[in-house]
């Protein structure tokens, strides 16, 4: 064996710890033994030794677990402890690590209780929806308990106090000992068979776990659940829960409380009735007031209170229309009148009288012009004429011959003889005088010296 392969103590301790913790047979186990060397350390942890004849085991229960212990452990006490084996590595010591603990003796009852509770819970026997309604006003209350205990007295007194009119059917049973459970079951079944009670109170006064044990029996729980009549359980005192409590429709901590829960106080009920009546009357009045208000609101509409007012708008509209109508018509008329006046004024302005005045002037001018022109022409003609006449007169040849002159023409009387050279002696000539003519022949010709021209 080589020293190099040797394990350290720490390692071996750890290995052992792992082995122990991995073994299911050493974990979550119940041990039974007597406590010795009990120490409640200031840290809250409990250190003690469990022993029986010939063997002992170091145990530890940490504070987180021991806080919920229902009892105070002490040396010499026999207990049932639950937990697992492990190793305290530093010391190489194995010990029991307790997670739960109960006094031994009744300890087995606890186990049974737990197991039954878990079983029934698994079946759904405790489900909330299975709980029956406790009647509001039971006429008859069935009481299943010991006829001699304080419980029955408390129940009867309380019921009487709360409602003296309630009937009580008492079914006496034994509430502890071996016959207790079957007797309770029978009573529940009998009550259901009878069918008179409206609610059942099943219970007893407080006691030890053993004394209460009948109420942890499976048969009782099932009978309670099977009951048609609602069941109020009333077992022990405030802190003790039994299986019956879980199965019942309502759990009362004490018999007195059960009676109170079963029957409401009559005064309270009367008060409630009165309260409901008042509420009804109040609501009704409120409804009436609301209806009245609604009616008044509608009736108060101005259309009903002052119906004529609605006509006013129409009357106004009509008046306005009528006024506008008349105004417009008068306007039209005035417009036409004005247009007419203007036009007739213009007509008067173009009265042709003025035109006749112009026409007359024009005519008179023309007439005057006519006369003037005619007279002018006449005068012109006259003056022209007289001028001509004067000229003619001045040129009159007869005037010359009148002074003794005569004219000599050639033989043919064609040519006027003006020179001696034009004629020969012997020629025949004609001589014209102022009052006739002479036929002559030329005898001689004498030329003369010209003195003046």
């Amino acid at each position, binding site marked *: 064996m080589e020293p190099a392969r040797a394990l350290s103590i720490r390692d071996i301790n750890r290995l052992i710890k792992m082995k122990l913790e991995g073994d299911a047979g050493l974990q979550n186990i119940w041990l039974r033994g007597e406590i010795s060397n009990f120490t409640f350390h200031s840290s809250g942890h409990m250190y003690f030794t469990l022993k029986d004849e010939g063997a002992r085991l170091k145990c530890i229960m940490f504070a987180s677990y021991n806080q919920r212990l229902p009892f105070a452990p002490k040396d010499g006490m026999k207990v049932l402890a639950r937990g697992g084996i492990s190793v305290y590595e530093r010391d190489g010591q194995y010990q029991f690590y307790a997670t739960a603990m109960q006094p031994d003796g009744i300890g087995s009852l606890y186990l049974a209780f737990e197991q039954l509770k878990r079983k029934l819970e698994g079946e759904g026997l405790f489900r909330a929806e299975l709980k029956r309604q406790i009647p509001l006003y039971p006429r008859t209350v069935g009481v299943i308990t010991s006829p001699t205990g304080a419980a029955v007295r408390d129940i009867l007194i309380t019921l009487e106090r709360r409602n003296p009119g309630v009937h009580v059917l008492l079914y006496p049973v034994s509430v502890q000992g071996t016959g207790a459970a079957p007797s309770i079951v029978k009573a529940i079944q009998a009550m259901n068979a009878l069918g008179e009670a409206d609610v059942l109170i099943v219970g007893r006064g407080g006691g030890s776990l053993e004394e209460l044990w009948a109420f942890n029996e499976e048969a009782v729980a099932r009978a309670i659940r099977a009951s048609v009549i609602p069941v109020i359980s009333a077992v022990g005192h405030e802190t003790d829960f039994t299986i019956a409590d879980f199965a019942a429709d309502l759990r009362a901590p004490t018999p007195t409380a059960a009676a109170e829960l079963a029957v409401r106080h009559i005064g309270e009920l009367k008060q409630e009735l009165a309260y409901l009546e008042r509420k009804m009357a109040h609501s009704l009045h409120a409804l009436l007031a609301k209806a009245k208000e609604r009616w008044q609101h509608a009736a*108060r509409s101005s259309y009903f209170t002052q119906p004529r007012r609605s006509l006013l708008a129409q009357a106004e509209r*009509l008046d306005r229309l009528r006024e506008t109508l008349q105004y417009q018509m008068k306007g039209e008329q005035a417009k036409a009148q004005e247009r007419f006046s203007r036009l007739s004024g213009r007509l008067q302005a173009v009265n042709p009288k003025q035109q006749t005045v112009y026409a007359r002037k024009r005519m008179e001018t023309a007439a005057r012009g006519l006369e003037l022109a005619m007279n002018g022409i006449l005068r012109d003609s006259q003056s022209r004429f007289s001028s001509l006449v004067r000229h003619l007169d001045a040129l009159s040849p007869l005037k010359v011959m009148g002074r003794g002159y005569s004219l000599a023409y050639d033989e043919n009387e064609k040519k006027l003889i003006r020179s001696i050279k034009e004629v020969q002696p012997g020629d025949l000539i004609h001589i014209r005088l102022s009052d006739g003519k002479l036929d002559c022949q030329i005898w001689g010709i004498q030329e003369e010296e010209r003195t003046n021209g």
Partner: protein
Amino acid sequence: MAKNVTGGADQSSINEETTEPTFESAMEKLESIVSRLESGDVPLETAIELFQEGMSLSRLCGQKLEQVERRIETLVEGEAGLQRKPFAAGKEEA
């Protein structure tokens, strides 16, 4: 009275064709007459015809208003008479 001067409001056409026009249709006619006159495009003779019809409609509407008023009076008086007897309180408050 005139047949269909306004040519306008269709909704009152049924009443119009039967007996007496309703207040509403008469008012509408009157309004359409007034607006035609307001438009200013109406020849004088047409205008005076429109005016005459308008006046006659106006009279009709006035009469109708009066009828309604009298009817309201009758109703209110009747109501007042009834009110006094059984349920006087309601009216006074309203």
